């Protein structure tokens, strides 16, 4: 039985100005310290749901609750509790240097410059970005940009991380790094909502999975249950994780 939600979406519907219906009555929740994965094909509405949950898009219907309070009541101050990492790091990194980018949110929150410096150095050290702090973001490799984008959010210690396709176009090494980060976050009680098509990552780190197709939640449950349903995987254009496939092969042998 899942309990104590930190984020809850109640019947979220969203339509873009061009008439595209991206979400249709989506209900989902994220518990404290839980990693929840949103799986689904391209265009399923995963990114839109993250933007709605971050309070950046206003839903047509439904509400987003943070600790059982409507985020509209909480106002922009709600954003310090959630950290959204965009799929394309070039959208996320817009400051003259990596240091300024990581410091951006802290400065916006009015931290004194000394405290900003010490916190930025701490996070950069954790993510292996110390040597890159004075570089402009566009001089970084794609993997470094992804790490820097993650640092811009981790720096203000949000209670919920919202990650949009965090492993897209990245090496297995970065995926392993991210997996470690998510598991570490789980250990310290940080929640995470993860929009991804990386079934291996979802299987290894997620506690709960929602499968989105054409803006609907078509299935939900723990990874073991979701990945057993072959018809569902086919509908959602997904595949079984490598671990399950290996287990099945071993059993067959």
């Amino acid at each position, binding site marked *: 039985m899942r309990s104590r939600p930190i984020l809850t979406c109640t019947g979220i519907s969203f339509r873009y100005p061009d008439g595209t219906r991206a979400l249709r009555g989506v209900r989902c929740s994220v518990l404290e310290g839980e990693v929840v994965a949103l799986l689904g094909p391209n265009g399923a509405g995963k990114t839109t749901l993250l933007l709605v949950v971050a309070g950046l898009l206003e839903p047509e219907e439904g509400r987003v609750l943070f600790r059982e309070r409507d985020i509209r009541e909480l106002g922009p101050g709600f954003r310090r509790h959630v950290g*959204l990492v*965009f799929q394309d790091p070039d*959208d996320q990194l817009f400051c003259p240097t990596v240091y300024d980018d990581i410091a951006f949110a802290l*400065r916006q929150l009015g931290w004194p410059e000394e405290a900003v410096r010490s916190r930025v150095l701490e996070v950069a050290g954790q993510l292996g970005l110390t040597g890159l702090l004075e570089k402009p973001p566009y001089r970084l490799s794609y993997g470094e940009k992804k790490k820097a984008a993650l640092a*811009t959010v981790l720096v*203000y210690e949000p209670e919920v991380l919202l990650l949009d396709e965090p492993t897209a176009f990245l090496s297995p090494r970065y995926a392993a790094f991210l997996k470690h980060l998510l598991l570490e976050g789980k250990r310290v009680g940080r929640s995470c909502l993860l929009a991804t098509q990386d079934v291996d990552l979802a299987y290894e780190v997620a506690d709960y999975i929602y499968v989105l197709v054409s803006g609907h939640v078509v299935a939900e449950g723990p990874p073991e249950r979701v990945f057993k349903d072959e018809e569902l995987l086919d509908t959602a254009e997904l595949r079984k994780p490598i671990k399950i496939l290996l287990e099945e092969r071993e059993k067959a042998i």
Partner: protein
Amino acid sequence: MWARKGLLARYLEAVGEVLDRLAREKEVQLAPATSISILAFLTSLAAFTSPLPLRPSSFLPLALAFLLATLGRELRTFLRTLGLAAIWLAVVVLPLLFITPGEAIYTLEAGPLSLPITREGTSRALEFSLRCLSALSLGVAWTSYVGLSSLLRGLALLDPTGTVPGMAFLTARYVPLSVREAGRLLAAREARLMGRKELRSAWLVLASSCGELLLRAYHRAWRVGLAMRSRCLSGQLVPVGREGALEFSALDALWALVAGTVGVLYLTKAV
């Protein structure tokens, strides 16, 4: 990809590369106030002062720009920019030779057409070209010498709200990205042209790329705006540090002296 990139795609790639190189951090540490003041002084001097009558001092801005580009180790970037600007300028000033009234020094005969090139037209075209090239080359060379961030921090002194330097930074940050994106769009479209390359197909490629680029730029602007809001944006666009903006050194004094001397020589045409 098998298809060779077209001229425009290569041109856009070169522009993106030049902008990227200009935005790089530099070792030269001039006070931001000096950086922005000298940039404003030199470019205004070159843009608003006539280089005519032609004397050795008329070419002082170009010579100084050449020296700066060499010192900034961006001579290749500088020459590429100058070359491209010269091509564009040639297209722009060409009509001036023919449409300016005055004494004809040569007449081009093309069938029934007779196009007189006038002395006044030549003089105006030359003056305009030299002003543009001098101002542009000084701007590019100075930026390559002191670095973009020093100029942005200097700009922050003039606009304490940070709006103008913030916008200038975002432009410098995203224009190379958009230019590269345009290059990729063109290359992708050209790669899918199966028939012989004709004017009509080239036009279609260009028009559809421009439309797509506009849409992509709009979407990127929207996403960057969302990214700012999601990171607790409270008012100031991009913080551009003003620390040390007024800490002058001997190097600042030296460059102020050089700029002043060039200014006097150029204005008085003493050489």
